């Protein structure tokens, strides 16, 4: 009995070691540094709550938080909508399913660096292919990444290109729904809308919740697209200064590691809080199988 506990623990030792060295220790250190003035080259000096107090008055901190929540809300909701529509369409046992699935899924594998450079090229204000297409149908094309009003929507639109990942997960969930439920619905005289509304969607709500949570955690960390497409300063007019971008500036450009750690911990708490909120209120709409 005791031997078995030891063997089990030994098998899990690699993860425990990694958890300790690469996660618990750094998180603890980050918490301590967040109360310090720390610039990597000098030893950290304890300054109490000064970093947090400064954060509350830091307009750029609030700006980056707002930008990130804006982006996350747009990217998560529109991404979910897109992937749900795609999954529902593909669930209709359509001919050439494998081909369509490949087409929708492939873009989600694109390396972010390559994807960002490509979309930058497509979003070019004049001569970009998107604005050329808009012009062809008589619509005025905005300057996209150079316009503070359109920079975030442009990044959200681009993120929808990666909806294929969530689509595959949703599709698997849809295909798990027992046929008997649909048969029962048909016998009760349900049309396609009612079946969708009362059978299909309720039964994939757990998968929808999973995608919401994962999508939220990922979008709150948005960095690479903005770093590449609009630069490390969050241009235009700080419209794309996202939280992690600001954190990167503070820690690795200004070398204010302590201040950065305070920001990092707040990000962690925001992610934790929003996820908890999502799960807390999921009981109202998520249908768990009994």
């Amino acid at each position, binding site marked *: 009995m005791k031997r*078995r*506990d*030891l*063997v*089990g623990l030994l*098998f*899990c030792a*690699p*993860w425990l070691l990694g*958890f300790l*060295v*690469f996660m618990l*220790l750094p*998180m603890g250190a*980050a918490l301590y540094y967040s109360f310090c003035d720390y610039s*990597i080259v000098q030893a950290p000096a304890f300054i109490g709550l000064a970093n947090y107090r400064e954060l509350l008055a830091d307009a750029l901190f609030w700006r980056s938080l707002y930008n990130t929540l804006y982006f996350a809300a747009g990217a998560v909701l529109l991404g979910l909508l897109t992937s749900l*529509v795609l999954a529902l*369409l593909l*669930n*209709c*046992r359509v001919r050439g399913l494998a081909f*369509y*699935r*490949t*087409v*929708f*899924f*492939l*873009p989600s*594998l*694109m390396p*972010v660096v*390559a994807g960002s*450079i*490509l979309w930058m*090229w497509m979003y070019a204000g*004049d*001569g*970009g292919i998107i604005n*050329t297409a808009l012009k062809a149908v008589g619509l005025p094309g905005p300057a996209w990444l150079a316009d503070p009003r359109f920079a975030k929507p442009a990044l959200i639109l681009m993120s929808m290109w990666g909806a*294929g*990942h*969530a689509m*595959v*997960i949703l599709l698997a*969930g849809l295909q*798990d729904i027992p046929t008997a439920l*649909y048969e029962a619905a*048909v016998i009760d005289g349900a049309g*396609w809308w009612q*079946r969708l509304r009362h059978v299909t969607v309720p039964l994939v709500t757990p998968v929808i919740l999973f995608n919401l949570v*994962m999508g939220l955690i990922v979008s709150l*960390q948005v960095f690479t697209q903005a770093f590449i497409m609009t630069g490390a300063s969050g241009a235009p007019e700080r419209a794309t200064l996202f*939280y992690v971008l600001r954190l990167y500036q503070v820690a*690795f450009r200004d070398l204010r*590691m302590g201040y950065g750690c305070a920001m*990092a911990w707040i*990000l*962690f708490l925001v*992610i934790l809080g929003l996820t908890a909120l999502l799960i807390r209120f999921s009981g109202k709409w998520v249908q768990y199988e009994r």
Partner: protein
Amino acid sequence: MSDKNPLHRTSPWLHLPLVLLGLLFLFPLVWLVVSSLQPREQVGLIPPQWLPRRHYLTLDGRTFPVTPPEPILSEQRLVKPLDGPDRGRRRLVAAGRYRDGQLTQTVFTDGRREERVFPAELIQAVPAGSRYVREWAPSKYRTDTPREFYVSPDRLSVRIQPVWGNYPEAVRALTAGEDAKKLPLRELLGRTRWPWTPKDAPEHTVTFLTYLANSLVVAVLGMIGTLLSSSLVAYGLARIQWRGRGLLFTLILATMMVPFPVLMVPLYGLFRSLGWIGTLMPLWVPAWCGSAFNIFLLRQFFLTIPAELTDAARIDGCSEFGIYWRIMLPLVKPALAVVALFHFLYAWNDFLAPLIFLTEPETFTMALGLQQYQSQHGGSEWHLLMAASVLLVLPVVALFFLAQKTFVQGIATTGGNG
């Protein structure tokens, strides 16, 4: 198989939204490839053009590529002044300014404009409606002065022809040193600094192949590490009934909520004190401790294997490690393939960690190398950026088509059980 599911009844009309959405999703990829094959004069034209068009000049029975022709509107003379400020240079002047070996030129002396006459040699009379072209250089880094021509339009032709040369040119462009870029490509790549080249070795250059090798080292070493460690931990959680395994599993799942940006500052400090900053180690060593996501995935697979199989081996006196290594691992090969694939992709696409931990160009990964090039040459050279992006995307697409089933099943498994 009879399918009574009415939602599964296929209507041909379904293809309409699917084709439309499919075109939308495919379009950026198509545009990426199209742009990567255009001659540099053509990218950035307003409005953009679809097909790569190349101009050719036929002269003395030889046909060779030239730059897009520029029209000469009025009659001109191409002359070589034998004296004056432009002595010895070729100049294109209005026809009226040259007559019988004499060129009338406007010169400025002490701020005063003055018309003066110099002796000059006529090279070519250029009638109105001629075209001006330069010999098309395959690489802008090879700095031979291109030859110039003033020719009649009927000597020029247009061909629809992709510029495959953009790819070697992109490989050249991603080289770190400006001087090295002028070398012939073969010689340039022959000087590549590999991850195992000693630091003090002379005559080595950071090239595209350096980035490629770094990316592969990070991806493959990390892949081996996470396969070994994640499967070991997953086995410990799924197949050994020890106290605390439930708690540990919850803890492992909880760590998925800790984003990398929270850890990056102290991790930088940790790796710095270990002397790992500027090496590839921060990017692959942590993978040897397993990752929550992979452990979760493998645990689900281990759980599906019937207990009788391992119980029998245990009674026969097989050690726990022996059971894991010799019986279980071969049984979960499909899941190991999923983990290997996902890790490779993750390592290949990762950007933030390389950006922070890699400080020397000789350690840059492909993604970072491409971004560095983009940040220095952004806003121009889109054809090269697109070609380099294709090179970054290519392994991913190849892997996907080699292992499409593994991908789709892997993602479906992890999502469905979440």
